[in-house]
């Protein structure tokens, strides 16, 4: 008896195989089987549909279709070829325009480069001038011209820092 109990437990476990079916499958299955049976019965009683074709129809059909595809290919309009340059004059005029635009562009670029180098040269000259002027002269000049600034005693280092933070090189050169 115990063996029987064990056997049935094991059988119950084995029934759950993990396989599943689509939803409502068994409801539709009955219909599918019935329909297939009806079809089988129909095929037994009605072997063919009764339709016929003229003799050699399919051989002629193929050649007829192929002939029509040739017509399709021939009737396709050829793509129109549009020349970029209609005449030599237009070709040379385009080339000339390109040369003029390129020339103007180059000229403009050169001018810009010159201005930049001139500005850089001027700045370098200003720096050199400041370098040549004595520091005490610069400090005296600023003290003499500045009335609004607070007159506090400052060490030389503090004065230098003040000048560097508040005056540009060009301003100093212009005043001196």
């Amino acid at each position, binding site marked *: 008896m115990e063996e029987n109990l064990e056997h049935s437990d094991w059988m119950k476990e084995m029934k759950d195989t993990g396989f599943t079916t689509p939803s409502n499958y068994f409801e539709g299955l009955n219909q599918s089987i019935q329909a297939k049976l009806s079809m089988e019965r*129909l095929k037994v009683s009605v072997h063919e549909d009764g339709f*016929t074709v003229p003799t050699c129809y399919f051989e002629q059909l193929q050649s007829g279709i*192929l002939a029509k*595809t040739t017509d399709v290919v021939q009737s396709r309009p050829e793509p129109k070829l549009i020349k970029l340059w209609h005449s030599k004059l237009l070709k040379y005029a385009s080339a000339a325009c390109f040369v003029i635009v390129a020339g103007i562009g180059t000229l403009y670029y050169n001018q810009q480069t010159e201005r930049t180098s001139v500005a850089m040269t001027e700045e370098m000259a200003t720096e050199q001038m400041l370098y040549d002027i004595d520091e005490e002269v610069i400090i005296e000049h600023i003290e003499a011209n500045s009335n609004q600034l607070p007159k506090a005693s400052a060490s030389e280092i503090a004065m230098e820092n003040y000048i560097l933070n508040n005056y540009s090189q060009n301003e100093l050169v212009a005043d001196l």
Partner: protein
Amino acid sequence: MKQVEDSEILEKFSQEKTRNEAFNLLLNKYQQKIYWHIRRLVLNHDDTDDLVQDVFIKVWKNLEKFRSDSQLYTWIYRIATNESITFLNKQKQQNNTPLDEVSAELADNLVASSYFNGDKVQLKLQKALLTLPEKQRLIFNMKYFDELKYEEISEITGTSVGALKASFHIAVKKIETFMLNEDITF
């Protein structure tokens, strides 16, 4: 005779030198399938002849744009289906036929057609199919006659697989009922 792969057809079609050869291979492979697919929808041989040629001309014009995100034959089927449905709708409008009389008119034309030699049972099946709504008839044809998978029909029609299954099951029931109805004879 070994069927050529769609990938080979597309590869050859992409090169101008082998384009005609590729199209020949495509026609060999699909023209009959597409013919019968259209024929079962429009019934008349001459109308089918016009439509199948229009379909393959469209295929020729658009194949280089074909993206391989669907199968080649489902793409061709889709073109054929759309052309057929457009044709049937135009016919209805031109003839000014009330919708409930359309199937009767098509069935009469079928009987009169020189390219239908079916027996009474086959004729009864065609009439049964004509009682179905157009889309249901289309789905039935593709499943029953063309033996396409639901996933393929879904690609062609843009309808979900679940809806296709439901539609097909309903169509089969209707046809079976019609066929078993002994009151309907020809």
